């Protein structure tokens, strides 16, 4: 429906931006340009592509240029250079009339401090975008009501914005943006002004709505947890430059540089990492080849008290303990079959770490990670803790 392609989008604030543009092309940094020319680089040659119906999160700290970038997309700020392709049209070079059409029909914006008109009632606020298109009052009222209903604010239409709570006001902001039925939603720190619980509700609600609406959403935030929660893909910005674009997982597991790494340091990793990220290659014995002697030997080598048992197809059969294995040796038992225990917990690769905590909490054995009964890895307590501490070992294991 709408994919957006941004090429070399640049904004330089100051009197002679062309001068700064030249320096940027020479590869000078934001600070060097500021010192040399007094020009401020807002966004430095950003290029990315947003897919249809994707939630694309742009995140960065304040001053990283993320708010400028989103305003370059609908030209609330005029770009110094670069192109913004939407449905095959270059928005950056459009005339005012075409630009207005795009803003009216294709792109809506939701603002950090809601941007509601205080002298208009809720329904009049939601109608605004339709009103300026000259749609007649009854038709626009109907559309606005549908939009209000969508965000769960039916019944509030005749209140004024300051009679509503922050969360409700932002729902109005969202309803106003949706009333135009745009294909692209630009959300500038839309939930940042809300308190944490409400913010989480709004994030959930946006995700629910997105299932129905299938809009292309470009979401600006400085909050990594928020980015990870709602983003299909995340872009990290620093000093006006895009540092990394990737799925939440890619960003967490393979940070592009120190900056991103420091960013993701504080994340509650247990919510994002899954069994697949933290599992280790398992030590196993093959029930069809090995007996208790080999099992005991391997356990001694690796310092384990139990070892997993698989067959030729690496299907998990169970585990044996060191005690049972040495008993079997004394009694001259040569097969592992009789020693097998089956009370080992199994999870699949997608199980989040949080759930594994609950499982591993009161058992002695490791947790087996299986894919259609085939053993692919194990998780021991140490690996869990290492993953939380963002041990470098975890990263290399999964690299």
């Amino acid at each position, binding site marked *: 429906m709408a994919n957006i392609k941004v090429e070399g989008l640049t904004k330089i604030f100051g009197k002679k931006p062309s001068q700064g543009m030249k320096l940027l092309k020479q590869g000078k940094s934001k600070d060097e340009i500021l010192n040399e020319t007094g020009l401020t680089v807002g966004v430095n040659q950003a290029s990315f592509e947003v897919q249809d119906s994707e939630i694309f999160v742009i995140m960065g700290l304040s001053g990283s240029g993320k708010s400028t970038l989103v305003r370059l997309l609908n030209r609330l700020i005029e770009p110094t250079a670069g192109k913004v392709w939407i449905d095959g049209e270059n928005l950056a070079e459009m005339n005012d009339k075409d630009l207005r*059409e795009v803003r009216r029909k294709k792109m809506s*914006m939701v603002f950090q401090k809601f*941007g509601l008109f205080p002298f208009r009632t809720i329904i009049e606020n939601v109608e*605004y975008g339709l009103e*300026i298109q000259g749609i007649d009052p009854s038709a626009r009222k109907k559309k606005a009501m549908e939009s209000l209903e969508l965000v769960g604010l039916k019944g509030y239409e005749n209140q004024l914005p300051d009679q509503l709570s922050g969360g409700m006001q932002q729902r109005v902001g969202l309803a106003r943006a949706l009333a135009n039925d745009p294909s692209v939603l630009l959300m500038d720190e839309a939930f940042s002004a809300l308190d944490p619980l409400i913010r989480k509700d709004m994030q959930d609600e946006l995700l629910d709505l997105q299932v129905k609406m299938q809009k292309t959403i470009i979401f600006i935030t400085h909050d990594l947890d928020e980015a990870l929660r709602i983003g299909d893909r995340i872009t990290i910005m620093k000093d006006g430059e895009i540092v990394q674009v990737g799925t939440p997982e890619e960003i967490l597991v393979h940070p592009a540089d120190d900056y991103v790494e420091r960013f993701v340091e504080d994340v509650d990793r247990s919510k994002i990492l899954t069994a697949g990220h933290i599992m280790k290659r398992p030590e196993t014995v093959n029930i069809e080849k090995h007996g208790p002697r080999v099992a005991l030997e391997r356990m001694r080598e690796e310092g384990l008290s139990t070892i997993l048992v698989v067959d030729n197809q690496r299907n998990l059969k169970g585990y044996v303990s060191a005690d049972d294995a040495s008993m079997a040796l004394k009694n001259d038992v040569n097969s592992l079959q009789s020693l097998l225990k089956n009370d080992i917990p199994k999870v699949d690769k997608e199980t989040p770490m949080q759930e594994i905590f609950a499982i591993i909490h009161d058992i002695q054995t490791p947790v087996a990670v299986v894919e259609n009964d085939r053993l692919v890895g194990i998780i021991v307590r140490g690996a869990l803790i290492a993953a939380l501490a963002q041990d470098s070992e975890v990263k290399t294991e999964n690299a």
Partner: protein
Amino acid sequence: MLNFMPQIPIAQWTTDFVGWLTSTFSFLFNPIKDHFGSFMAWTANTIYSIPPVIIILLVAGLAFFITGKKFGLAAFSIVGLWLIYNQGLWEELTFTFTLVMLASVLSILIGVPVGILMSKSKTADALLRPVLDFMQTMPAFVYLIPAVAFFGIGMVPGVFASLIFATPPTVRLTNLGIRQVPTELVEASDAFGSTGQQKLFKVELPMARTTIMAGINQTVMLALSMVVIASMIGAPGLGREVLSALQRAQVGPGFVAGLGIVILAIIIDRLTQSVNDKK
């Protein structure tokens, strides 16, 4: 050392310039003087022909509703206006009121658009700002001289002088009010594809309303003070009574006429402010 050059003939230049203006634009000034003059006289006479009781009740009723159904200003208006009538100054009041009203309306009609222009254009802002400073700081009496040259004596030059003196606050505060509209609201308006006009009328002017009204209140009060000064060039009204009392050193009549102006000022001021307070 300071005498390195002879006196610059600024006074002469100004006299010549005003003389040139007067003769060159007399085709413009004369019809204004005639038509606007007779329109003002007609307005004043119309108001004067309405029985004072009706006017007093109308003003009181207006005060009652504009202040949100409170009796204070309404009661004050009844007593105050009756007192002016009682002192035999009703006709003078009518003239003063007509002058203030017309001067204010013209000031607002000119001031608001100029203020909008200044808020939209940096160049206009830079050019007009010193002009406004000049208009406000030059002693008001000075405007009377060219006013007489252009329009003779009477009500028309009075309105002209008060226009120059009273317009700046409306211009300034309209400019300020629009510039103070929160960026996010302007952005919201733009982001939904408003045209410049839609943005102005649907967002900026409503948001700036309180500030603009404060400017208008100032303009009306300045117009009132100028109308008194304009009595020196023959504008009729309460000011003329003050002036003639001054010339004859009559404390009593001077005080009574002055009191009339104060009463009118209070009523106008509270009325224009109340419009603002209302949600």
